[in-house]
């Protein structure tokens, strides 16, 4: 007992100390613009801006009527509001390098690296369906929390 408290307390303290820096790692970076959340999170989670380079966001926003096979168009005022906000808030994660193929987050080298332990068949399970369905395995993805310790891959 005593040893576990002795080891847990410093760990806890370290966690608390590290908390303010969590953002820099890209975690806890849920998008905050209500319009972005409203328009983008009906079909998928409101992806964190840090997950793509700004140039990719711009191409996606410029092509919403043909958005990965679906019409995700918004009115002109909304598009302008979201674009302005994206430009002001893009804080691309350090691990993000290239503009991924088709501007798909899930085709980024860092995404594939982070998910290399997931067996290929798992992605096809009914509860997951697609690598874009973050929340299937990251229960707090909607809040911008992708911490691997909270990952639960549905059977």
């Amino acid at each position, binding site marked *: 007992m005593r040893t576990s408290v002795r080891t847990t307390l410093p760990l806890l303290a370290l966690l608390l100390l590290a908390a303010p820096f969590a953002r820099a790692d890209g975690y806890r970076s849920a998008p905050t613009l209500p319009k972005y959340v409203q328009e983008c999170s*009906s*079909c*998928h*989670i409101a992806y964190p801006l840090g997950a793509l380079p700004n140039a990719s966001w711009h191409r996606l926003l410029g092509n919403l*009527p043909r958005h*990965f*096979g*679906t*019409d*995700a*168009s*918004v*009115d002109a005022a909304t598009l302008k509001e979201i674009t302005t906000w994206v430009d002001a808030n893009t804080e691309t994660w350090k691990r993000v390098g290239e503009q991924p193929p088709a501007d798909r987050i899930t085709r980024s080298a860092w995404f594939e690296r982070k998910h290399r332990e997931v067996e290929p068949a798992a992605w096809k399970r009914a*509860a*997951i*369906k*697609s690598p*874009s*369905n973050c*929340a*299937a395995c990251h229960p707090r993805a909607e809040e911008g929390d992708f911490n691997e310790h909270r990952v639960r891959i549905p059977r």
Partner: protein
Amino acid sequence: MNMTTRIPPILLPLLLAAAMAGAHAATPAELAANYASQSGTAPAAARGEQFFTSRHGREWSCSTCHGTPPTNTGKHASTGKAISALAPAFNADRFTDLAKSEKWFRRNCNDVVGRECSAGEKADVLAWLLTLKK
């Protein structure tokens, strides 16, 4: 003469604000009536059901994501994200905002039919959705 109907000027901004705040609030029945009057023909729930559950030369029908009947949580065909029930009796938020309904008809009709839906098609679909009861 007609002093009783005159509104004190000080109340005008308040009344205007109240009217604007309520500008988006509507009932599904009001939206249905709106689409029906635009189309000029009487809506038919059976036609709406047929339209909703059929494919229109493309990969998806409305049911693909919303379910058949759309009284339970649906699932986005490509992302897998949950879609709350569409029938108004099962989800009080549905069809209470004309702009929102128009946005989703525009997007989803483009995906399912490859064009925007006519007012008549919208009236038919909504007429059918309103027949779905608990």
